[in-house]
């Protein structure tokens, strides 16, 4: 990576790391902050761009699975470097029922903080984080950029959080 602010080791923030707080636009007039979700798990799904040309792209897939995430009390946030207006159009087109956050200005700043910015392409990695109710990363995963990771890893991470809470 050429970016000077990138974490020296590179790669996504590992489990056990405090998740950096952030505030990003979710619509042209609203923002969402990580700390809004204190007390419940957050799934942070970084993806390279809106408008991938396939059925059931990653965000559309998660939209279908949202009720399962909600069973764990978890909130799902999509993040890409697309702007809020782009997200709005994409979200309406796909009928998404969870927020897409615009890591747009300064571009990719949140992704850099999580160690998942691709400086050469100017997009985020396809990266997943499960953050617990106390704001600590409990699971992270970077998928090959062309491979939609699905949701099995997220659900296993949420299962593990649940087991810990109960155990």
């Amino acid at each position, binding site marked *: 990576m050429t970016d000077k602010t990138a974490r020296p080791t590179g790669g996504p923030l590992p489990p056990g790391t405090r998740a950096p707080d952030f505030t990003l636009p979710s619509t042209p007039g609203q923002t969402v902050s990580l700390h809004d979700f204190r007390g419940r798990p957050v799934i942070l799904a970084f993806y390279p761009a809106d408008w991938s040309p*396939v*059925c*059931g*792209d*990653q965000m*559309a*897939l998660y*939209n*279908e*699975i949202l009720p*399962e995430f909600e069973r764990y009390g978890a909130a799902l946030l999509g993040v890409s470097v697309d702007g809020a207006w782009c997200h709005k159009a994409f979200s309406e087109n*796909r*009928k998404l029922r969870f927020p897409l956050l615009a890591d747009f200005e300064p571009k990719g700043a949140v992704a850099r903080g999580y160690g998942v910015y691709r400086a050469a392409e100017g997009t985020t990695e396809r990266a997943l984080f499960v953050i617990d109710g106390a704001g600590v990363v409990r699971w992270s995963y970077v998928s*090959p950029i*062309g*491979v*939609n*990771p*699905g*949701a*099995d*890893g997220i*659900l296993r991470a949420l299962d593990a959080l649940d087991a810990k809470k109960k155990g």
Partner: protein
Amino acid sequence: MTKHRDVAALAIPVDAHDHAAGRPDAPVTLVEYGDFECPHCRKAWPIVKAVQHRLGTRLRVIFRHFPLKELHEHAEHAAEAAEAAAVQGKFWEMHDRLFERQFALEDEQLTEYAQDLGLDAARVAQALAAHTYKPNVREDFMSGVRSGVNGTPTFFINGLRHDGSWDEEPLAAALEQAAR
């Protein structure tokens, strides 16, 4: 695409409840998670037929439902219709008809297809109205979610997600390799 160490794997093994075409002792099992209203799945339909033809008895094909109902409003009911046909012994016939008539999947059309296939159409209509097979479809969907299904169609070859192309040649090559 190269295989990853952590490639997604089928969470629920194939069993007697699955819709299967081919011999249970075939060396290769191809599982498709599909959606009858998905244009990519429709495109994959003749490709799966072609690889079935090419591999013959060495290949068993399984179809599991993965309706993207937020995107495709008829997908879930179409899947239920296939289940209703399965109970009367004609899953694959209905599967083919649904892909063939993907642009016409209203309830009355689903019932019409049941009639065409010589099924008890009234029973199919009743099952659709009552959502009798919704739990079965849901079970398939969740098994797909747990297995790392990442869109439709998603294929698993001998239990591992096939992340490569599913055009006929690369799919056939992957199946041949698994058969070795």
